[in-house]
């Protein structure tokens, strides 16, 4: 059954991924700095701090944190956009009239027409400012902003709602896409039974259900939720500091866990089944992101400055196809595959976007 599902999904993915490869991306793209980031205090500008990326309309869109080396937010959250083959960067200010309605952008997602970004807020203020979900029209800029009662962590888009998690608890919330107001939440996820803290790491949509991870340094739990009510239908363990998830080409969910260095695959169904697909070596550290395209999964490890391409269809089971180092001190944060042979990597340490060409 799994094999049939894979071939079907792979065929669909192949049909969608186009006949030709994406044009080669420019090797490195510097992100704006200084006055371009519209600092609150011109003498103390922040750094771009790129986070998640998404493709829309031929452009890559990158969420920018705009904070300094002490994690002090120095300006409004922004989206940077560029065509990978040219690298010319344009900025979209998410901060609103006072520059503080959206601070420290983290996730950016798209429904194919619009962009949606999370704003983690300024943790150095009390009460915390700038926690929000922002809707962005790629042609017109910010169209709507809703302030969130918590610091949002993870985001997924359904036809009716935007679901996001709470960085400080195991709760999820929903924004109604029509009214652009909070419509549901807090809805409690199944979370690790031990540990002092819980956080919602990421969410995604698959087969009409929402999948969300609640994790801490003891363990991680993936939850299958009703996309309308958020009620938990099922859950399964996916490892400590399960940090990101993505839908794979064969209709499963890939999850990376930063503490045990594992890539897990979750097969939808009742109950959810989880298998360890790949274990990274001890020198590979701090897994940050996972994305998928066709039969491949792409991962990011910020501690070792490495990104990996893992072939889920390899004979004998998932296997490493290639690995690249994006530079000492780069601290890669997210990856965006352009096709099977190249990807963009956002580096929070070097405040840059680099293109990776896979050798295999």
């Amino acid at each position: 059954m799994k094999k049939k599902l894979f071939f079907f999904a792979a065929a669909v993915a192949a049909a969608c991924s186009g006949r030709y490869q994406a044009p080669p991306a420019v090797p490195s793209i510097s992100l704006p700095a200084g006055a371009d980031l519209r600092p609150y205090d011109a003498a103390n500008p922040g750094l771009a701090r790129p986070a998640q990326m998404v493709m829309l309309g031929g452009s890559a869109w990158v969420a920018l944190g705009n904070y300094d080396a002490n994690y002090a937010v120095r300006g409004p959250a922004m989206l940077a956009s560029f065509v990978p083959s040219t690298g010319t960067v344009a900025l979209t200010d998410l901060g609103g009239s006072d520059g503080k309605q959206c601070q420290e952008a983290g996730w950016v997602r798209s429904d194919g027409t619009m962009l949606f970004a999370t704003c983690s807020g300024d943790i150095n203020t009390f009460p915390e400012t700038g926690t929000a979900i922002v809707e962005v029209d790629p042609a017109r800029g910010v169209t709507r902003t809703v302030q969130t009662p918590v610091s949002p962590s993870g985001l997924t888009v359904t036809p009716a709602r935007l679901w996001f998690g709470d960085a400080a608890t195991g709760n999820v919330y929903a924004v109604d896409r029509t009214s652009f107001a909070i419509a549901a939440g807090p809805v409690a996820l199944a979370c690790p039974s031990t540990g002092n803290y819980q956080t919602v790491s990421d969410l995604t949509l698959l087969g009409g259900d929402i999948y969300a991870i609640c994790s801490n340094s003891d363990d991680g739990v993936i939850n299958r939720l009703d996309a309308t009510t958020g009620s938990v239908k099922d859950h399964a363990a996916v490892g400590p500091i399960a940090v990101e998830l993505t839908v794979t080409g064969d209709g499963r969910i890939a999850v990376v866990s930063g503490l045990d260095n594992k890539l897990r695959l979750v097969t939808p169904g009742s109950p959810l089944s989880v298998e360890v697909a790949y274990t990274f070596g001890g020198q590979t550290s701090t897994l940050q992101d996972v994305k998928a395209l066709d039969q491949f999964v792409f991962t990011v490890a910020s501690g070792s400055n490495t990104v990996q391409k893992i072939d889920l269809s390899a004979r004998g089971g998932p296997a490493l196809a290639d690995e690249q180092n994006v530079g000492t001190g780069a601290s890669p944060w997210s990856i965006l595959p352009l096709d099977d042979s190249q990807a963009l990597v956002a580096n929070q340490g070097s405040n840059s976007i680099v293109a990776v060409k896979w050798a295999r």
Partner: protein
Amino acid sequence: MPPSRAFARIIASFVLLAPRLAGAQEPGESIDVVGQRLPQSARAPAVQATVVDAAEYGGEVRSVGELLLAAPGVTVHPLGGPGQPATLSLRGASADQSLVLLDGIPLQGAGGGAVDLSALPATLLSRMVVSRGVLGAQYGAGALGGAVELLPKSARDRTEAGALVSGGSFATARAAADVSAGGALVAVQGDHTAGDFDYARQLTPDIPDSPYYGFTRNNADATRGSALARLAQPLSATTEIDLLLQGSAGDRGLPGPANAPTALSRERDLGGLLGARLTGSAGDATWAVRSWGRADRVELLGVQPFGDCLDGTPGCSRSDERYSTARAEAEMGAPVGSSQWTHLSVSGGGEWIGGTGTGSHRRGLVSAAASDDIDLPAGFAAHPAARLDAIGRDVGVSPAFTAAWSPRQGSPLSLRAGWGLSFRAPTFNELFLQSGGIAPNPDLRPERAWSVDAGISWRAPRVQLSASAFYSGYAQLILYELNPSANQVKPFNIGTARIWGFELEAVLPLPAGFAAEAAYSFLHATNDAGQDLPYRPPHRLFARLARTGDRLEGYAESSFTSAMPRNSFDVRLATQLVFNAGAGVRAAGPLWIDLEVKNLLDDQTLEDLFQYPLPGRSIAVVARARL
């Protein structure tokens, strides 16, 4: 923000601060070492202990951390190459739970926690006594893994002087000298290294057999100066005064992990201690009063939670932490009957911290201790002890009982067993440090631990064999855990640990002036969930073959540390095996010339726990003389 991301943000600053985080220790009283044949401290009779004699390594350029590797039960965690921070772990306890005392005066980091062994001057020391176990009753609260007593060189009546200069790889140099006369001693040591050693790393470590690339370490230079002065003078036939003054100052680069180097971060430190002790006797009883004080200052320049910055530029603030402590102690010992010796002590004082990360805080330190040494029939001896410690609001009692048996007076064979229970109060850093990705927790409670051990030893004049086994239980351990709402790690009393193991030690004479020694340690350290505790190597072996003589000396040694977990989920640091060797000749009169090679096989792939590179092969030439 997912926790993995927050961890990545804070890890750099946490690593830099780690050696200074945590660990309240309590002061102790005077110490004496009861000869080589009884390798133990007078403060801790019948405990499992090892004496490291610094004179055995006279022709070698050694740090205190390197010297301690000769003792079983010891793990030294270096954070990079020469001159970079290094911390101590005894029997799997953390650095905060492993006391280090200089002439009985406890040493702490700027936050009241782990001691940086690299800041201690090895040439100013005479011996080190490593006592293992939960020894709060003997050394004060905080000695959950044990204690290392550093015994400085003694002031002698007769004139004696020595000097040493060395130079070698990475522009590493040392100069040391001491002179003693008329009951006074002055000793100095200066060290410098450029620290620019070559190392190798895989850039794509998940690809099997991916190539290693060569790098050169930058911003790893270190310069340090240390001085020691002692004065011991009899005041009467039954009283003596002993003064001790020690100071140290250092400046070093903080190069950061190899994956995210910090070219601009630096650390400066300045510290010292002053102690005065009056000892005497009245009939069969002995007494001592002592007062001492310590002050330390540590400045971090260009250090930020995420990367580094140029000191003096906007937004690049300095961290400046000042820690001081002072204490007065009184103790007395007296016989009770013909087979019992009772020892009582009281002390009082305080400790203070003030700094950009912690703010200003103080707390009182009070203790009262009692112990007995009881000779029993049939070769048995019992040593019950108890100590009350009040550290600020934290008050606890540390009881202990050790016992020994020997078939007859002077027999080389002895059996020892011990039990101890104690606590460690939270340090100022754990309670108050707010810095970058680190949050304080003023509600912390003390950690608690107990242990039991037993051992057998054979100690003839030249042959020494010993074996011991132990079990330790820890509760309320203070561990840093992520607070995702604030993107910070914060300490909590959440840890548990069960550590058991055994230790083997052997010193054997060989023909032609050679001697062989070996120390092996096995550790099994888990939490209540059965997960391995990070940074505890299951196996460690130190083996050394050395020759001493009037004209020719030399040694060859190896240090093996098995793979160890870097976290509780089986992510491991690779096995490390290092060979060192050296030889020296007496060139003229008292002048010796020595050559030594460390990391003989030039393994440039070694890394420490935090993936800081360690040096490959280094060569040093030493010239030394003693009159």
